[in-house]
């Protein structure tokens, strides 16, 4: 008996999204209520699914009850359940920030696009079918195009065009990879494909290898691994703060797909060997170096956050690229940490920029409103992102360093991780001192956004954007306390990950062991079909 709960993370947002457009398109309050309810529901279902998946089975949901290689399946293992949970936590917290900061009224359909985005992300984490993965990728990308350009403005739209162009090329590549793999294996079900790959003769694998490499390229585009990262900085830097924070999970979808495909379909002992994964480690090292240099070199606060996101991807992939239990455990821990930390960083950056009237350049300005609280949040987030104790970034890097201790590249990996940590420490220190310390050297000018008394007191904030209103303005913040609470919530998750690091890494180790036993997936998807529902 398969619980029908498995489809809920896709179905709930899929129903609520259109409902919001059709039924409550002019009522922001209703959209907010239903949006938060939708995200909360996916979070609750994710918690329940984690309890289900913790038993160690791979639970398969056969859509329409068609038997496996013919019908599409969703499959839930520990990794998928954990990713759903991470998405749920991030979605709820960041959505509250979007409401609290007033971003959700700066354009149309913020909350329904949010739902479609969740639907795509959740679906991509659960699907057991390669073509279905493409479809869910498209759903999450289409929603992300809308969210990324939310609020409009020339810079955001132009960055949006670049983002769409890059990702359309990526989607075309994805289709080419799937077509190649289908032509060789004759199936699109991941477990079935894995079994056929295992049965293939070595001399027939030229096309299969091409397909595997193409697939790796596609996922590297989504994950923004150098040299396929060029879409990320201007996209994340120009996206609205809460949207950029949600995008922190989107690049992890690429990482998830790499883990899924290259443990299940093309494990390192399969016929394609490590042709697609060999390049992952050097690429990850360069990604890390480039990201941290970007953190140090940039003159824009939003780009600083974007480059920090790139660097975290690099660190993560260094560990994942080993594809053994230890490497995966460390990588998964760092994935949880870096998603939450990157999201918190984007939100803090948005808090700062909103308080400077939308000025996100790193330069001396008079002290901002709530400067004490904002600078404390920036400090804590920087600690988490850079990887200093006591927050979870430190433990994550420590786990990765321990996991790579026996690697032949050990010296290079350790040097790069440690040196780039110092570089990013300097980068964040520079940003923080320009933003918060040097600010006190200037007197608040009258009429500046720091001066609370100067602005005329407005009535209740209208739910629609007036045409002459600035896009980013702290006075629009419907509930600043909610925005602060959201950032605090993300940091609290990081603290919790530090406190419960022992049990968490134990669980992640079980997860990594499950991932390295693909037979479990073959049996669950293809053989345990009788009376499946």
């Amino acid at each position, binding site marked *: 008996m398969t619980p029908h709960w498995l489809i809920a993370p896709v179905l709930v947002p899929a129903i609520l999204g259109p409902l919001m457009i059709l039924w409550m398109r002019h009522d922001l309050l209703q959209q907010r209520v239903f949006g938060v309810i939708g995200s909360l529901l996916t979070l609750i279902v994710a918690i329940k699914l984690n309890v289900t998946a913790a038993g160690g089975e791979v639970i398969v949901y056969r859509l329409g009850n068609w038997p496996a290689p013919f019908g599409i399946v969703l499959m839930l293992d520990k990794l998928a359940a954990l990713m759903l949970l991470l998405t749920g936590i991030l979605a709820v917290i960041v959505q509250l920030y979007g409401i609290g900061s007033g971003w959700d009224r700066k354009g149309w359909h913020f909350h329904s696009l949010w739902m479609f985005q969740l639907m795509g992300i959740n679906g991509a984490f659960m699907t057991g079918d390669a*073509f279905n993965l493409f*479809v869910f990728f*498209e759903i999450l990308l*289409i929603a992300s*195009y809308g969210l990324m*350009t939310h609020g*409009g*403005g*020339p*810079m955001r*739209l*132009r*960055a*949006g*065009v*670049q983002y*769409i*162009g890059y990702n*359309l*090329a990526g*989607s*075309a590549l994805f*289709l*080419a990879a*799937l*077509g*190649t793999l*289908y*032509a060789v294996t004759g199936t*699109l079900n991941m477990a079935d494909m894995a079994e056929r790959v295992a049965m293939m003769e070595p001399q027939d694998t030229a096309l299969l290898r091409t397909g595997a490499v193409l697939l790796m390229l596609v996922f590297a585009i989504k994950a923004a691994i150098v040299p396929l990262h060029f879409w990320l900085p*201007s996209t994340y830097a*120009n996206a609205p703060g809460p949207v950029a924070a949600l995008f922190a999970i989107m690049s992890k979808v690429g990482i998830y797909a790499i883990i899924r495909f290259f443990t299940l379909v093309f494990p390192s002992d399969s016929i394609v060997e490590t042709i697609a994964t060999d390049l992952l480690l050097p690429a990850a090292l360069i990604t890390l170096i480039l990201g941290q240099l970007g953190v140090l070199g940039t*003159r*824009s606060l939003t780009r600083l956050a974007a480059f920090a996101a790139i660097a975290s991807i690099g660190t993560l992939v260094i560990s994942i690229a080993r594809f053994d239990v230890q490497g995966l455990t460390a990588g998964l821990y760092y994935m949880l940490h870096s998603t939450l930390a990157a999201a918190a960083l984007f939100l803090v950056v948005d808090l700062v920029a909103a308080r400077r009237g939308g*000025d996100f*350049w790193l*330069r001396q*300005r008079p002290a901002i409103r709530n400067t004490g609280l904002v600078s404390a949040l920036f400090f804590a987030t920087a600690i988490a992102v850079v990887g200093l104790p006591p927050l979870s970034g430190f433990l994550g890097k420590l786990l990765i360093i321990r996991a790579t201790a026996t690697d032949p590249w050990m010296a290079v990996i350790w040097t790069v991780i440690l040196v780039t940590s110092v570089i990013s420490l300097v980068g964040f220190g520079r940003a923080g001192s320009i933003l918060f310390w040097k600010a006190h050297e200037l007197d608040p*000018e*009258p*009429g*500046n956004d720091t001066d609370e008394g100067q602005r005329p007191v407005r009535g209740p904030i209208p739910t629609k954007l007036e045409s002459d209103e600035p896009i980013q303005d702290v006075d629009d913040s419907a509930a600043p306390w909610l925005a602060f609470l959201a950032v605090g919530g993300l940091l609290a998750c990081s603290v919790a990950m530090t406190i419960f690091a022992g049990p968490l890494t134990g669980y992640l180790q079980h997860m990594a062991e499950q991932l390295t036993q693909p037979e479990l997936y073959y049996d669950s998807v293809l053989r345990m079909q009788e009376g499946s529902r």
Partner: protein
Amino acid sequence: MELLVASGIGACMAAGIYLILRLRTFAVVLGMTMITYAINTFLFATGRLVVNLPPILHDGDAAAYTDPLPQALVLTAIVISFGMTAVVVMMSLGAFIEGGDDHINMPPDDREMPPLKTIDDRPEEERA
């Protein structure tokens, strides 16, 4: 026939790649369309090229049929790429109207720090 289809796909793809590397959005949109054509044809061909065979089993004769799955896939791909072309056209139009030109590259404002606006830069009536 294989040679014809393969070279058609190759030519389409080459033209598409050349076009998406151009600096203006119009050429990039056209390039996207070309790439989509190439990929859709490629996807269609992954079920082997045959002539005059139905995509359904008839009398259990496995030789007299063509694989229906790529046709279903290509249908999905066509729908998605069609929608995406519309999205990219709308977005380019928005960027053109808001940004004033149709260049793909970000304008220099994206990298250069604009001068800080002080209270003296504001228009006359606001200063009063």
